[in-house]
């Protein structure tokens, strides 16, 4: 964790990423929905960055724009120091992969497991013979804990956890250095969540792959991440070392998020004070001026309404965007 700030070592670097969607608000009128509004971060090789935030705050869009599944409105993405753009994207598809949230709709129901996992190999022509393709696929299947005899089956025959394993095997097929995990466990049962999260950790140990782990469950993110970033309405509000963020949160939004985490021990839970935020999340079509969080923040001042707070380092790589704290 000490070499976090050294720029040369970072695997993925995102600079001021922006993604606006045009939304029709009336006849012949469109407004820009700022799903992601200037997000920057770095991920080191073999590291996991957790990304948390409530629904609709742009977590998924960050992941998808990073992989250019959406065309970014602005900002740059670097992989191993090289800028990723439309022309060389096909090359980087081999290095950056994605695991999707919904294991039901992210796998083609008309394909066998073998063909789903083999698709990246087919697209990038990563084998010289049929036998090699099959061996690679079976190797991937055993890596994620699937039986070889499942290769010829169709996805509707599998449970949610098994399907997510198929999705992970597909992402691993091209031997990527970096995987965006878009809420990979939120559609699964709690018991299976643990299995899959532990598998992500094992795979990281074995393959040295880096993750951007998107989730809304803070406990899962804390468990798997080296660092955690918190998003609110398309902007990053706090980013720090996982333990540091859990123990010493600075931003008022992070504080309220942490206070909402359920505690398994009822006595501690009773002693804890929950910070309940007032009001609703503002519409991303009509964002408040200055700091996006000021409408629900009890420390908000005039300055918060005037200017957007900068994302500054408060020591040890603990980045916060807040005027007051």
């Amino acid at each position, binding site marked *: 964790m000490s070499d976090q700030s050294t720029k040369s070592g970072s695997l993925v670097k995102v600079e001021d990423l922006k993604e606006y969607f045009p939304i029709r608000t009336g006849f012949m009128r469109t407004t820009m929905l700022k799903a992601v509004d200037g997000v920057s971060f770095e991920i080191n090789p073999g590291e996991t960055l957790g990304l948390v935030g409530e629904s609709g705050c742009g977590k998924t869009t960050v992941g*998808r724009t990073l*992989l250019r*599944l959406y065309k970014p409105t602005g900002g740059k993405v670097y992989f191993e120091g090289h800028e990723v753009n439309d022309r060389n*994207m*096909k090359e980087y*598809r*081999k290095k950056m*992969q*994605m695991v*999707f*949230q*919904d294991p039901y*709709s*992210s*796998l*083609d*129901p*008309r*394909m066998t497991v073998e063909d789903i996992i083999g*698709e*990246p190999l087919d*697209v*990038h022509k990563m084998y010289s013979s049929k036998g090699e393709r099959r061996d690679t696929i079976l190797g991937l299947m055993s890596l994620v804990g699937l*039986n070889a005899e*499942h290769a*010829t*089956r*169709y996805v509707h*025959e599998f449970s949610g956890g098994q399907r997510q394993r198929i*999705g992970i095997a*597909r992402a691993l097929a*091209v031997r990527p250095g970096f995987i965006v995990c878009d809420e990979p466990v939120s559609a699964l049962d*709690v018991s299976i*969540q*643990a299995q899959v*999260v*532990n598998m992500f950790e094992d795979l990281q140990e074995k393959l040295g792959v880096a993750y951007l782990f998107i989730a809304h*469950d803070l*406990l*899962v993110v804390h*468990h798997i991440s080296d660092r955690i970033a918190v998003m609110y309405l398309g902007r990053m509000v706090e980013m720090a070392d996982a333990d540091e963020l859990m123990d010493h949160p600075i931003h008022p939004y992070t504080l309220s998020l942490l206070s909402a985490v359920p505690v*398994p021990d009822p006595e501690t839970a009773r002693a804890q004070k929950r910070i309940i935020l007032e009001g609703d999340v503002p519409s991303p079509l009509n964002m408040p001026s200055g700091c996006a969080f000021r409408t629900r923040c009890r420390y908000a001042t005039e300055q918060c309404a005037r200017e957007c707070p900068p994302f500054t380092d408060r020591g040890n790589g603990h980045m916060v965007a807040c005027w007051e704290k």
Partner: protein
Amino acid sequence: MDSNMDSMNMPKKSPFSMQIDLQRFEKATDEEKKQQDVMSESTTFFKDGMRKLMKNPLAVASIIVLVLIILTIIFAPLIVPYGYSDIIKVGGKRDKSAKNLAPFTYSAKEIDYMEETGEKLFPHIMGTDSMCRDYFIRVVYGTRISLSVGLFASILVLIIGVLYGSISGYAGGRVDLVMMRIVDIIYSLPDMLIIILLSVVLNETLANTQNPIIKSLGTNMVSIFIVFGLLYWVGMARLVRGEILKMKNNEFVLAAKAVGASSGRIIRSHIIPNCLSVIIITTALQIPSAIFTESFLSFVGMGVKAPMPSLGSLANAAREGLQSYPLQLVFPAVTIVLIVLAFNLLGDGLRDAFDPKLRR
């Protein structure tokens, strides 16, 4: 999250708690865990659909009827010793008395001939027509023409419709808008009128052609194909576009993009296979409609060229002697009805079996 549920130190149940007493549970043995791994027999979507189709009595009956009709039109001309355009010959001479015979009867000359030589002549299963030609073989050839028109026209519609619809649906945006407005314009044209106009115009332009394929088919036949190619694909294109718009929003398309698959590959290997059931069903329902159109055109005299028969032109010819020989209308009409009904019922059966919305 990673709390291990170790059964060895299960918490003791408080007497007032509503919770299940965890101490009453015992750990599953390895053998019991193995049972979880056993999965049901692997079935593909296609196998599953076929099994359902075979359970539908109407669909099975129509498959049998269609198979019988197809076998007949393939093998009957090999067995029956009469030609569709030849006057019946007895002992090498034309038999002018064999006019409008009833089914399974012989003309006076044929009876004489059979008595003379002792040789048995092949029966006229459906009698003969007013030109002394065997009617059964004419109906068989007419069915051949009608079925092949239906089949080829549907294939034409299938190819154009799927290509156009998938491009429009996948591209989206402005491309989709323009392509769909073109479809709307074609959709609003009165199709029968266009068919009649086109076949009149094409008849004149194609009349002098030396192309052997067009000559043997007859200019009317070619114009029917052109009309189908021009007009009838719009329904299929709209349907395919709608399906693709639905499929496009599925995450597996996004996943294929993340893997690096090209648009062509995504359409070919993800979107089209998932729309296949809808495409098959629509094609099955398109065939009877094409047969019907062809029969109608032949009936009004714009179909195949005489002496080549089609079910529609046979029905039209039978109209003249309707009072005296009603059976000559009944045979081609019943054949049309059988084919159209069988294809419609089969199409419905296919929809019930394969439509993902009706499944489960």
